[in-house]
C-alpha cells in the first residue's frame, strides 16, 4: 500500500533540505562557470563582442580569419573554461552528495525479495545483476541469465509474489559488446512493475521466446528478430515482420551498412 502511495507522489521530488543543498551547489557551479567565461571572454575581447556564449562560440569560428596567436589564445581559453566548468560540476555533485546521503529506494525491498525468490526457485546464479532505475519511477531492474530466462519468465507470470500478467513492451538493443532484450512487465492486480534484461552474445544471439507465456511477445520478438537478428527459439512463427523476406542484414545493428548510400 505504501508503495503505491509513493508511486503516486512520483512528481514531487525533493525534501526541502535536499533542494536547498542543490540550489547552493548550483549557485556555486554558476559562479565558477561565470568566472571561466569571463576569462575566456578576456582572451577574445579584442575581436568579439562576446554577445553570446555557447551557440555563437561554436558557430563563430567561420566568421573571421584568426591569426595564429589569436587562435591559440582562444583554444586555450576554451580549454580553461571547459576545465573550470567540469570542476564546478564535480564540486556541485560532490556537494549534493555530501548534503544528502543517498537513501535506498522505496522499491529496494521489492527488488531484494524478487532476487531472493528467483534465486531460491530457479537457480542461485539466475540473476546476474540488479539495480533500481530511479529516474524511471524507481523501476526494479534485473538482469537474468539467458539459460534461466524461460523458467524465470514463467515464475514472473504465475508466482504469487509477482503476478506479472501484462507484458508491456519488449525491446532489443545492440550494445556492441553484447545484445540485449529488455522486457517491461506489470501486474494488473498489484501494479508492481519489473524490468528484465536478458543478455546474449553478439555472434549467435539467441534468447528463449516467451511467446508461450505472454502472447504480446509474439510480434515484438519477430520485430526484434527482424531488426536486430536475435533468434528466439520456441517462437511459433519467427519470420521477418517489417522488412521484406529477402532482406539481407538486420538494420538496427550498429554494424549494419545500408545498401543505399542515400539513406
Amino acid at each position, binding site marked *: 500500500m505504501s508503495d503505491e502511495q509513493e508511486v503516486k507522489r512520483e512528481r514531487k521530488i525533493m525534501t526541502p533540505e535536499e533542494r536547498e543543498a542543490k540550489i547552493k551547489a548550483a549557485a556555486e557551479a554558476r559562479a565558477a562557470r561565470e568566472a571561466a567565461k569571463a576569462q575566456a571572454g578576456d582572451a577574445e575581447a579584442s575581436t568579439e563582442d562576446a554577445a553570446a556564449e555557447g551557440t555563437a562560440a561554436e558557430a563563430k569560428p567561420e566568421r573571421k580569419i584568426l591569426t595564429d596567436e589569436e587562435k591559440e589564445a582562444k583554444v586555450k581559453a576554451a580549454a580553461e573554461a571547459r576545465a573550470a566548468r567540469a570542476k564546478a560540476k564535480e564540486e556541485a555533485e560532490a556537494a549534493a552528495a555530501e548534503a544528502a546521503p543517498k537513501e535506498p529506494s522505496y522499491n529496494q525491498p521489492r527488488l531484494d525479495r524478487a532476487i531472493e525468490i528467483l534465486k531460491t526457485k530457479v537457480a542461485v546464479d539466475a540473476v546476474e545483476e540488479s539495480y533500481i532505475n530511479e529516474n*524511471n519511477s524507481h523501476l526494479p531492474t534485473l538482469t537474468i541469465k539467458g539459460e534461466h530466462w524461460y523458467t524465470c519468465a514463467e515464475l514472473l507470470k504465475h508466482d504469487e509474489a509477482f503476478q506479472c500478467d501484462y507484458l*508491456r513492451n519488449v525491446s532489443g*538493443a545492440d550494445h556492441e559488446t553484447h545484445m540485449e532484450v529488455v522486457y517491461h512487465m506489470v501486474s494488473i492486480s498489484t*501494479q508492481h512493475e519489473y*524490468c528484465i534484461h536478458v543478455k546474449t552474445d553478439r555472434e549467435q544471439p539467441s534468447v528463449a521466446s516467451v511467446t508461450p507465456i505472454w502472447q504480446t511477445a509474439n510480434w515484438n520478438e519477430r520485430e526484434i528478430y527482424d*531488426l536486430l537478428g536475435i533468434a528466439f527459439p520456441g517462437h511459433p512463427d519467427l519470420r521477418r515482420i*517489417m522488412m521484406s523476406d529477402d532482406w539481407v542484414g538486420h538494420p538496427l545493428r550498429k554494424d549494419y551498412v545500408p545498401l543505399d548510400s542515400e539513406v
Partner: protein
Amino acid sequence: MIRTEELLLNVGPQHPSTHGVFRIVVKLDGEVIKEATPVMGYLHRGTEKLAENLNYTQIIPYTDRMDYVSAMTNNYVLVHAVEKMMQLEIPERAEFLRLIVMELQRVASHLVWWGTYLLDIGAMSPFLYAFRDREIIIDLFNELCGARLTYNYMRVGGVKWDAPEGWIDKVREFIPYMRKKMEEYDRLVSGNEIFLTRIKGVGTYDAQTAIDFGLSGANLRCTGVNWDIRKNEPYSLYDRFEFDVPLGTNGDCYDRYFIRMEELRQSLRILEQAIEQFPKDGEIMGKVPRVIRPPAGEIYARIESPRGEIGCYIVSKGKAEPYRLKFRRPSFVNLQILPKLLVGETMTNLITILGGVDIVVGEVDC
C-alpha cells in the same frame, strides 16, 4: 462430385478499409474466414534507426509521423521520457498546454475513428460529420502551432508556442459545441438498429485474453479491465482532474464503440476542468540545457494515447543522440489479436473487427 475449395484472398495492401497500406491474407471458405495472416511493413520508415543519428529535438517531428492521427500524444511520450531521464521540472503553464492539446487530440482522434468506422460499416455521412467537428480542433492546433497534422509542438522542457490570444476561449467554446454534436451523433448512429446488430457480439474476447495479448486502451477496457494509464500511473497533470474510465463487459465491438464514445465525453470533461484551472501566466519553457544530453541509463515512459499505451524506451549513453530508441506502439500490439479474432468470421466482420481495433498503419509499421 461436389468439391469445395478454399479461396486465398489478399485484403490489401490497397483496400478501402485497411486504413492505409496494410495487408491481411485470408483463407476463405465461402465467405467464412479459415485463417488470417496480417502482413505489414509497407509503411516501415525505420524511425528507430533514423533516431539513432538525430538529436532529441530532431526526433520530435519524426514522432508526428508515427501515429499521424494523434501526433500530440506521440510528441509527448518522447519529451516525457527525456524529461524523466533528465529529471527536469516543467513549468505549470506548459504542462497545462500539453494536457489541453493532448485531450483535444484524443477527441480529434476518436472522431476520425468514429467517422472511418462508420464508413467501413457502410454509412457515409457520419464520416463527414466527424470531419466537420475535427476540423475545428485542427484549426485550433493550426492556430497554436502552425500545422494541421504534424504539429512538432512539444519540446523537452516545455512547449514551443504559448497559446495565442483568445485561443483558450475558443477551446472553451468548443466544449459545449462538441457536447451538442455528440447528441447528434448518437441520434444518427448509436441507436441505428442496423448498426447495432452489426457490432453486437462481434469480435468478442475475454479479459484474460486481452491481458495476455497485451492489449491496451479501449481494446482492453472493453473486457472490463480497469486500466487507464492516466488513472493508474498519472503523468502530466491528470491526477488533478476528475474523470471516469468507461468500462465494458462483453469485450465485443459494441463495447469498444460505446467506450470510445464515452471517452470522448470524458475528454471534454477533462478539458473543461483544465480550461478552468489554466494559469493566467507563466513560463512555457523550463530551464533546459542548450544541448539535451540525458545521463547514461535507460528509461521506459508510457502514456495513454487514444489507441492505448504508447511507450518510449530510450537507452542513452550520455550523448545528444539516443543510443537506442524504441516505441511501444499501441496499434502494433493491439493488432496481434486480429488473427485470433478473425477465425470463423465472415468477410464483412473482418472489416468490422479491424475497424474496431482502431489501428493507424503509420504506427503499426513505425
